[in-house]
């Protein structure tokens, strides 16, 4: 059972102080976490080394401006950091980071991973919103009560993987009524325990999985069912897919913010998939008309074949979509089905190879023989 320490402070400031002391005592050389930019309410991930700058850090602020997994990967792309760093990530961001490490896009060594039982994040369009602060406090209330906050991303509302895997330290947030008085830190790994001394609190024997947590999970699973159903509109098959993606501008923002879409240059931005002018005539002949620019569906389906099996359902893609396509929900739906098919859980185990890169000789043996 993991070592647990109860800290008698508001969770946000408690974690803040913990990190601050790590930084000041130079146990770690830098903290990777959310930081307030300025008065306009914007927050963004930053690597912070100076205690002074750290004042602006807001580790648990419920926004995900970028998927931190992607950010950490760009930080450790060329190898491990020599100086120890602490990083505060949400469970899905952590899973994304693990997936990226599998693909040689990052390195976790010397990074102290701190995560939390996650109540979700607010949709990005609320960032910089005039009543941002009140929304945030509403959010924290729902976290305490282990309720699903309606202001959070759709993917967050139906996310049942809100307990981190592979975290060195876990902040127990969801379902703790006294979150603004006290909270518990779980030190899950030896690496994590090295730092337990810095946590000024009394060690307790608790399990992270409480009844509240499990009920919360159930609620979200139910919601998942619901949302997944909704993605299928009345008319089925291709038509429904066409309708869903009809507004798509082809801005490919979804792939740019997707942590799993790690390619430096996306194949679908390349000349390879440009529309060949020569086939215009025949296409018009058959169809009588043609959407331009065409190829949206190829992009989305193609992107699925590339990443859906590793989709961590972080919801970035939906949030950046300028035309409100429920990209995340659809990909997450396809993803979970693929993950079942290949018995694969993205972000669980760094050693486990990604399904595209491997196979078993004795799997799917019926296929091809019919």
């Amino acid at each position, binding site marked *: 059972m993991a070592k647990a320490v109860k800290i008698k402070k508001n969770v946000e400031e408690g974690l803040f102080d913990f990190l601050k002391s790590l930084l000041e005592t130079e146990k770690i050389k830098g903290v990777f976490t959310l930081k307030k930019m300025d008065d306009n309410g914007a927050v963004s991930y930053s690597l*912070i080394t100076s205690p002074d700058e750290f004042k602006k850090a807001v580790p648990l602020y419920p926004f995900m401006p970028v998927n931190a997994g992607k950010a950490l990967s760009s930080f450790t792309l060329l190898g491990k950091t020599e100086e120890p760093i602490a990083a505060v990530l949400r469970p899905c961001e952590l899973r994304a980071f693990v997936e990226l490490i599998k693909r040689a896009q990052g390195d976790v060594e010397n990074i102290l991973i701190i995560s939390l039982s996650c109540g979700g994040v607010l949709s990005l369009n609320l960032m910089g919103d005039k009543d941002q602060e009140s929304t945030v406090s509403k959010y924290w209330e729902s976290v305490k009560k282990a309720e699903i906050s309606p202001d959070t991303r759709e993917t967050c509302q139906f996310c049942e993987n809100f307990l981190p895997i592979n975290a060195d330290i876990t902040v127990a947030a969801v379902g703790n009524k006294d979150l603004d008085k006290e909270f518990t830190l779980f030190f899950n790994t030896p690496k994590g325990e090295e730092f337990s001394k810095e946590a000024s609190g009394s060690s307790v024997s608790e399990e992270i999985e409480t009844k509240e947590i499990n009920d919360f999970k159930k609620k979200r699973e139910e919601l998942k069912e619901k949302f997944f159903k909704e993605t299928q509109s009345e008319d089925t098959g291709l038509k429904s897919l066409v309708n869903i993606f009809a507004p798509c501008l082809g801005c490919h923002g979804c792939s740019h913010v997707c942590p799993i879409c790690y390619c430096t240059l996306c194949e679908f931005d390349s000349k390879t998939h440009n529309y060949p002018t020569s086939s215009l005539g025949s296409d018009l002949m058959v169809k009588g008309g043609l*959407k331009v620019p065409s190829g949206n569906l190829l992009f989305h389906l193609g992107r699925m074949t590339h990443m859906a099996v590793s989709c961590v359902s972080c919801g970035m893609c939906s949030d950046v979509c300028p035309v409100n396509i429920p990209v995340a929900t659809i990909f997450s739906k396809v993803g979970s089905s693929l993950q079942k098919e290949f018995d694969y859980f993205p972000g669980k185990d760094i050693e486990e190879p990604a399904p595209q890169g491997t196979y078993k000789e004795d799997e799917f043996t019926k296929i091809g023989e019919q």
Partner: protein
Amino acid sequence: MNNNQKETKTNPKKGKILPAEKGIREEVLNIFKKALADNIFDALLIPAKVPNTDAYSWILLQDESLFDIADPLPPVMTVQGGRALSSFSKNGELDLKIAALMKPCEIRAAVELFKLHQIDLNLVTLISIDCPGAMPLTDYMNDPKKIGESFKKISEKWEISESLRPACQNCHRFSLMDGTASDLHIGLVGENNKVTLIPNSSIGNDLLEKLGFEPNDSLKEWESKKEKLVKEKTKKRDAFLKEWQEKTKKTDGFFNELNKCINCHNCMNACPICYCQQCYFDSQTINFKPETYIQKTKEKGALRFPLNTMLFHIGRMSHMVLSCVSCGACEDACPVSIPVGRLFSMVGDQTQKEFNYVPGLNREDPLPLQDFKEDEFCEVETPNECEEKVTEEAK
């Protein structure tokens, strides 16, 4: 490039005015129905509403039945028309006669892309239309019905409403300009329930002819109404420019506007002028070892992720701002509502003045950076020589 457009400039402007009992949209569509039926074109590039959805998108229209969903003045600008046109005409030779009905800013973008060989205009007839502006994309997607309605009202009254896209509120180039961009212009600001066709090139003339219209009607009505509107809007634009120049004067005001950026590059992908197959700033050609980043961090105390967002915006600006047509597509596409369109438009305005270049005005004007005059900007490096030169010329 089309040479016989030059003389059209000198022509005294005359056009054809058509009654539009069934409403302006209908009338405009009728013109093209006829054109297609008479095989004047093989296909028409026009916005359309995707059946069973609230979404709009560009279609190449050939089958007449599709006119039911076509809409010359949609409430939103989805993909910038220039981008749409180039998407199918840049990969090989176009062998179909195509008419493209687009907003003036889209026409301008198309012309810029044409100069960059991203569009093959040989068989394309560019047709511009007086543009009442469009609604912000996200607003519309959030509540299509309501926004759609209010757009109807706004567009009918040609009112410069606060609820229009900022780019449109500040747009003074919403109508035909004195240039060789479009072949035919469709004026709507004139008398109510009238559609005015203004040929703007020999191709435009031929087109009217083929349609059996004699371009003899005077354009006074339309011109005066247009001028009035242009004045108003220019005023509004100047105010906006002023305000924003102030805003961005104060230290890193410019950057503060951008500090929400999450590096999704939607702006770049929506921008018609960013025609690159793959953006230089996507191919993060320079990666550093973690130490280097930590070093950087230590210098400033903190290092923001994602990296290089500022580099991206400034860099992109340096690549395209001279051709920025202020269409606002970038701002529409920004998920964190950064006023990126206004920023770029403002900077564009300044730089374009420097080169006194109006993007998309004339097909013949070379791109400023593909062309230089030996004696321009000489003050930049050698003021003295410059003076000498000037004085010599004076003699």
